[in-house]
């Protein structure tokens, strides 16, 4: 039954794709199918999470001697739930957002076709139970999303981004295939059951882990192989960016978890350390780069790198605990990671949809060109604010809960015997704290510069609130979730505790408390958090304050022009810009970037003293772009050039090759 729900989710998304291809006039149906697909996905996910039975099936597709194996367990269900929510809300959002595309039936067909395929691919990845089907679904996801990235291909930058994206996807996929191949070569067949049963030596296991980490990490956007991500995500239409950044990265994480925790017979703490370090680096550099961006969607993409880094970090913790036979704590880590994945999906979607709304109303994504929107677009601003608060993990919102859990996991380090680990994990915890704080700074910048202050451009001046209800409902749903799961996290955590039992057959410690009121991951004695109580006390205090300060006798505020210190009119250009805001951090973390900062002064010709005009230009580049990507590209071209020499164009040389080869081979066989 549940499995059929999942199937119908996949089929519905395919149906919407096919329906779009037919190019009928009823575009609404396309989105209806999408919405239904999302709803079914949610239903299937929740249903499976509630009754924890692993469902298995076979579909007569694929290789003659091996049909597609299907397996639907807690982990898949959880990620399917994430996809479902995202797709569901997007189906509300898209119809109005894609108004312009719908004017041109062909481009709309292309967009919807690949959207449907993309979603279907992601869902199939979760259902796959053999390497072959997994790879097909995986690549379907990648290729479809490639076409979506290349959707606005008139712009050459987008083409480059799309190419880079597809290249990375291909390389990553090859690495994943290789990882599967390594395990499969020690097993009979390449169904996941066979892989689980494989008698693989430790060294090969570690190789497989490394390959999988690179392959999935490339998709998930781990530093230093993340460069495609900030290029590709922003250029797609916003609801697609939301799906890619909010959901596709999660699918990559799903692959990583499935491979490391489930398929590989055992885990080693060294792997955990690797994950921990890479995660930390990704989290820190992700948020630092995000801070430096001016394009809103690029910024959000980089912040995805950060959040993925956090999740991988916590996975590393969980792996370390698992390898040291502290299964409950491993479960705790896994729960924290999964919950953060869930939350990230929520608020990242919310923010991308918000960015889409801003772009839709102002045709502007450059933070320095916006401002003062809180008055023009009040509802949007509230929703966006909620997104910002969740992502910068403030209490009462969901982002905080998962980071709190992460800290709790890290603080269990005392149970470990290995001193190195015990001293390293707290450091990474502090790095996590730094990341959170930087994220807060970053999103203060985002919200402050976009919504507060005075408009910096005519577009922002003329902006109006979204008038379509359905477009507004999508972010509303997400924002509500962000708040709700911030107050009652136990709803999700309960579901998750079952997931872990499938993957590492362990659940949270017995002493842990997960009630709507209390949240104590290890035990009530160790640490407890009650967002609900806090919410209550917030309300009480606010009421009291209001009563005291706005009771009778409170004078009404006087509204006056801003005090300009008597210098004359203030202009919007006097406000802090994005670069100005981040300048201190840029100077402090200067080594993290490749900064090219220029100040050109032109003096008045008569005297060398007084300045006519000053030009300031700032260009910040990613280290890994210069030190990882470009060298590879150059290398390939150089080798290709060298190889090109063998084809001289002279036929006598060619005959010479023939003779030489003949002689060589004859010599070889005569040995």
């Amino acid at each position, binding site marked *: 039954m549940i499995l059929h729900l999942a199937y119908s989710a996949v089929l519905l998304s395919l149906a919407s794709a096919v329906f779009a291809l037919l190019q009928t006039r009823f575009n609404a149906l396309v989105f209806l199918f999408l919405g239904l697909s999302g709803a079914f996905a949610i239903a299937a996910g929740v249903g499976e999470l509630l009754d924890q039975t692993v469902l298995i099936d076979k579909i007569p597709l694929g290789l003659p001697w091996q049909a597609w194996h299907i397996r639907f367990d807690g982990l898949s269900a959880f990620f399917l739930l994430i996809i479902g929510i995202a797709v569901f809300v997007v189906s509300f959002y898209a119809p109005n957002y894609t108004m312009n595309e719908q004017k041109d039936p062909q481009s709309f067909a292309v967009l919807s076709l690949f959207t449907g395929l993309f979603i279907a691919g992601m869902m199939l990845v979760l259902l796959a139970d053999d390497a072959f089907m997994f790879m097909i679904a995986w690549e379907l996801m990648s290729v479809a999303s490639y076409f979506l990235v290349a959707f606005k291909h008139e712009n050459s930058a987008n083409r480059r981004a799309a190419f880079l994206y597809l290249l990375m996807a291909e390389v990553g996929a090859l690495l994943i295939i290789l990882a599967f191949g390594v395990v499969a070569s020690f097993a009979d067949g390449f169904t996941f059951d066979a892989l689980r049963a494989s008698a693989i030596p430790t060294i090969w296991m570690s190789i497989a882990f490394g390959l999988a980490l690179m392959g999935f990490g490339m998709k998930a956007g781990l530093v230093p192989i993340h460069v495609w991500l900030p290029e590709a995500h922003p250029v797609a239409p916003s609801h697609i960016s939301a799906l890619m950044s909010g959901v596709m990265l999660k699918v990559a994480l799903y692959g990583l978890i499935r491979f490391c925790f489930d398929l590989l017979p055992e885990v080693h703490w060294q792997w955990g350390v690797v994950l921990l370090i890479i995660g930390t680096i990704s989290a820190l550099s992700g948020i630092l780069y995000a801070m430096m961006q001016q394009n809103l969607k690029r910024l959000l993409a980089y912040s995805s790198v950060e959040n993925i880094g956090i999740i991988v970090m916590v996975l590393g913790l969980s792996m370390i605990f698992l390898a040291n036979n502290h299964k409950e704590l491993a479960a705790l880590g896994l729960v924290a990671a999964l919950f953060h994945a869930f939350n990230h999906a929520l608020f990242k979607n919310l923010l991308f949809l918000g960015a889409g709304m801003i772009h839709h109303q102002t045709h502007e994504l450059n933070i320095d060109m916006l*401002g003062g929107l*809180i008055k023009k677009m009040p509802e949007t601003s509230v929703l966006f*604010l909620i997104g910002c608060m969740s992502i*910068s993990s*403030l*209490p009462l919102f969901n982002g905080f809960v998962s980071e*709190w859990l992460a*800290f*709790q996991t890290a*603080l269990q380090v*005392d149970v470990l015997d290995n*001193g190195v680990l*015990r*001293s390293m994990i*707290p*450091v990474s*915890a*502090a790095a996590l*704290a*730094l990341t*959170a*704080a*930087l994220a*807060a*700074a970053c999103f*203060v910048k985002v919200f*402050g*510069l976009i919504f*507060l*202050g*005075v408009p910096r451009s005519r577009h922002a001046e003329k902006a109006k609130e979204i008038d379509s209800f359905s477009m507004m409902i999508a972010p509303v749903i997400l924002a509500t979730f962000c708040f709700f799961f911030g107050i009652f996290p136990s709803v999700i955590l309960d579901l998750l505790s079952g997931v872990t039992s499938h993957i590492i057959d362990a659940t949270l410690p017995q002493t842990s408390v997960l009630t709507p009121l209390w949240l104590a991951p290890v035990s*009530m*004695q*160790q*640490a407890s*958090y*009650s967002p609900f*109580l*806090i919410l209550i*006390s*917030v309300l009480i*205090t606010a009421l009291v*304050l209001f009563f005291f*300060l706005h009771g009778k006798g*409170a*004078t009404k*505020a*006087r*509204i*006056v022009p*801003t*005090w300009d210190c008597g210098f004359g009119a*203030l202009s919007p250009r006097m*406000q*802090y810009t994005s670069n*100005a*805001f981040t300048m*201190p*951090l840029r100077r*402090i973390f200067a080594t993290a970037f490749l900064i090219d900062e220029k100040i050109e002064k032109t003096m008045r010709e008569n005297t060398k003293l007084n300045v006519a005009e000053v030009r300031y230009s700032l260009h910040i580049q990613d280290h890994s772009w210069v030190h990882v990507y470009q060298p590879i590209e150059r290398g390939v071209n150089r080798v290709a050039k060298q190889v090109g020499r063998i084809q001289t164009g002279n036929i006598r040389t060619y005959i010479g090759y023939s003779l030489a080869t003949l002689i060589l081979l004859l010599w070889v066989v005569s040995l």
Partner: protein
Amino acid sequence: MNWAIAILQTVLFVALAPLLAGFLKFCKCRLQNRRAPSFLQPYRDLLKLTRKQPVISENASWLFYVAPYIIFTMMILAATVIPLIAVDMPTSESADVIVLVGFFAFARFFLALAGLDIGTAFGGMGSSREMTISSLAEPAMLMAVFTITMTASNTDLSGAILHILHSGSTLHPSFVFALFALILVAVAETGRIPVDNPTTHLELTMIHEAMILEYSGRHLALIEWASQLKLMLYGVLIANLFFPWGIAQSFTFGALSFALVVLVLKLVVLSIFLALAETAVAKMRLFRVQEYLGFAYLLGLLGMLSHIILESTR
């Protein structure tokens, strides 16, 4: 009963905060050979501000209005978490030290936004600097606090304090580092010299003041009070976490009143130290703050390591 105590303690917290600020000012004036205003001066200022009619820029949005309330509320919540005169408060169960940091972050978030709301250069400058410093201070603070909580294997403050109380007068080398780290962080977070100077309005140096430049009347009162409360919170945190002796473990009147007296003494000592420091040290350049906080982080790290290397049982 417990709840009553808890609420009373919180009220006490809020009530005493201006007094601490006043006393601190008093000490400083004395150290600098100036005639000091009375301890109660802060109360008078707050009262006056609440009476005055707020003057607000026309650019201000609703966020500008609500920010002060949010900030103040968050500080009060923080006050409910930190044990003042008694441990085992039901309120302190609801949030642990990480949440405490979260509350501070929450307040800061809105303070910075409020700074950006009017759209003046000063506001942006203040928010930018505030976020920079805090994002450096937070990890240092957590490092310091984690040292304690790992010793107590408990991130609830009252739990940690109890653990330290029961472990008797064992001398933890790690605590020394943690203490100094926390003091440094506290100075930075509460915007005192040498990181920030609460008394100046010189645009090149001001941080906290730059953000609240546009506030007036009751809003300003709330923010001022909140920052005084913050100072008190850090003071109490340091005092009760590292020198918990005297804090009431049973809700008898005697214990509580004794605890109060002890606490006052602790705070007096602390504020004298702070005053001394502020008189002796000069404000540092903005871009030396990272070194300062880096040092704090280092101390926290050393505390952590010495806990793991020197104090753990294995």
